[in-house]
């Protein structure tokens, strides 16, 4: 793709990013930071693409480390965000919508609720 199309995409993505975050209640600042943090773990793809033409052991080692880092970023980021958010979620009656932010009665589910997001990885984890 030529540079100008890429810059156009870049600019539009910037506007979307600015627009999406309008007013966030303080309570959600931390999970939101953590969630965006997980999304930039997309750099993992950079490692996957680059390793296809890596030559020599050093480059391969560098890229394996990069992939490892990217994976930690993605997997850890989404899981940690999910854990944080589940603290605010009420468990018993399912889809009760309390409208504003002073909402979910704090039924913290037993903290060991990390597995629900069975996301982010083909080779699934040991833990």
């Amino acid at each position, binding site marked *: 793709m030529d540079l100008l199309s890429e810059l156009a995409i870049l600019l539009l993505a910037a*506007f979307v990013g600015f627009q*999406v975050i309008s007013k966030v209640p303080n309570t959600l600042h931390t999970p939101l930071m953590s969630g965006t943090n997980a999304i930039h*773990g997309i*750099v993992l793809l950079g490692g996957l693409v680059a390793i296809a033409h*890596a030559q020599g052991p050093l480059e391969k080692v560098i890229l*394996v480390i990069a*992939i490892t880092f*990217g994976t930690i970023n993605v997997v850890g980021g989404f899981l940690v965000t999910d854990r944080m958010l589940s603290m605010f979620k009420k468990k018993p009656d399912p889809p009760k919508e309390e409208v504003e932010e002073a909402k979910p009665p704090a039924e913290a589910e037993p903290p060991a609720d990390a597995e629900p997001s069975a996301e982010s990885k083909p080779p699934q984890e040991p*833990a």
Partner: protein
Amino acid sequence: MSAPLATSFIQDPDFINACYIVAFSLFITGLSMLTSPTTAVRGNKLAAVGMLIAVVATLLNSELNGSEFLLIAIGLVIGTAVGVPSAVRVKMTAMPQMVALFNGVGGGAVALIAWAEFRQAGGELGEDLAIGIPLCFAAIVGSISFWGSNIAFAKLQGLLSGSPIKVPAGLFVNIALLAIAVGAGVAILLGSTSEGLFILLLVAAAVLGNLAVLPIGGADMPVVISTLNAFTGLSAAAAGIALDNTALIVAGMLVGASGTILTDQMAKAMNRSIGSVLLGGFGGEAPAAGGGEGGSEIGGTVRSTSAADVAILLAYARQVIVVPGYGMAVAQAQHAVKELAKELEKRNIEVKYAIHPVAGRMPGHMNVLLAEADVPYDQLKEMDDINPEFGRTDVSIVIGANDVTNPDARLKTESPIYGMPILNVDESKQVIVIKRSMASGFAGIENPLFFDEKTQMLFGDAKSSVAEITSELGGL
């Protein structure tokens, strides 16, 4: 992308790019859902699904051969083996530093990818500036983000002092380091193919990342982490341009932009400007920080008390407000606090919790902890709702909070935190402050509340102090 014979349609670059479009649509939707409490959980899951799609699509790339798949698998497995347990086991109190760490490795990945790409191009980045410029940018910013996040982690984890660490002539050193990194980048773009120069670029940016975060006080860490988060996003977007990968461009820029807005909102909640945070040294010039014996600056004496006395005081109160801070988080005292509240409620004493937006080390930190201890959500009051209540409150118990209760922010124009919205704890009839020592808070300034004649200090670990009060109360 040309292995025509073996290529089935799913290996077609167009198919992969179509998957990317699905992936970043999910990111955008997920991100917007993350801004509302009712949809946030689903938003995060959507984004995770988007990521899974993007990763799988990338692996369809027909250029990958078996041994490369093996290397990829090694990276994915190690990354998962490290990431999952740390995310699952980390205590809620240590969440902020965990986020810093995850952000850091992201930045580190960008810097490493840039390095590998430099080597693959044989160092000839000057050949194609449309690749060379974003690659140098990604390397510099990624390296800053990696090291800066590590320092933020070390500070929050207590490996480094949380108070500002002054670097002599810091600003000039930082500008010089940035100049070295950019200079090395320019030399490479002008045709130098020296790998040493590229490593110099990475190292200068690394030192800059360290030195830029060191002088920033721990209280400002959320803003720093959020800034570095936006940085990593930008560097990922730059890497995306260099690698011709739309998913990276869109997702990276999305984080770069939304991270910037988020940083701004966080800074506003603390009544700080991003500039003043990043230039560092909050409270650096303020009167002698930590550990000073009571009263040198403020004049007045500190009254210390015992758990038994506090229990008696509480037993005759009608309304009690608990003001939690970082000290509660560190001591893991939230369950003990909940027990105390239960004991008080048994005696028909009303208990409320005053939550300052930036109490703890991250916005929302206290909400998360108290929610974990099953404190009913409707007892957690935001600052604007609770402030008028203090005048009607018999006893306020400040548990490990400091700067967010400092009346100087309201009264003393020359105070470094003047203008920061605070909890008006000093308006209640009696104040109990549970604290380990007279050391100052992360802002590094004295708190006249501790010298107020209505205030009594209960020195000790938050958890055991609170538990002691509860048992004394039970015995009354």
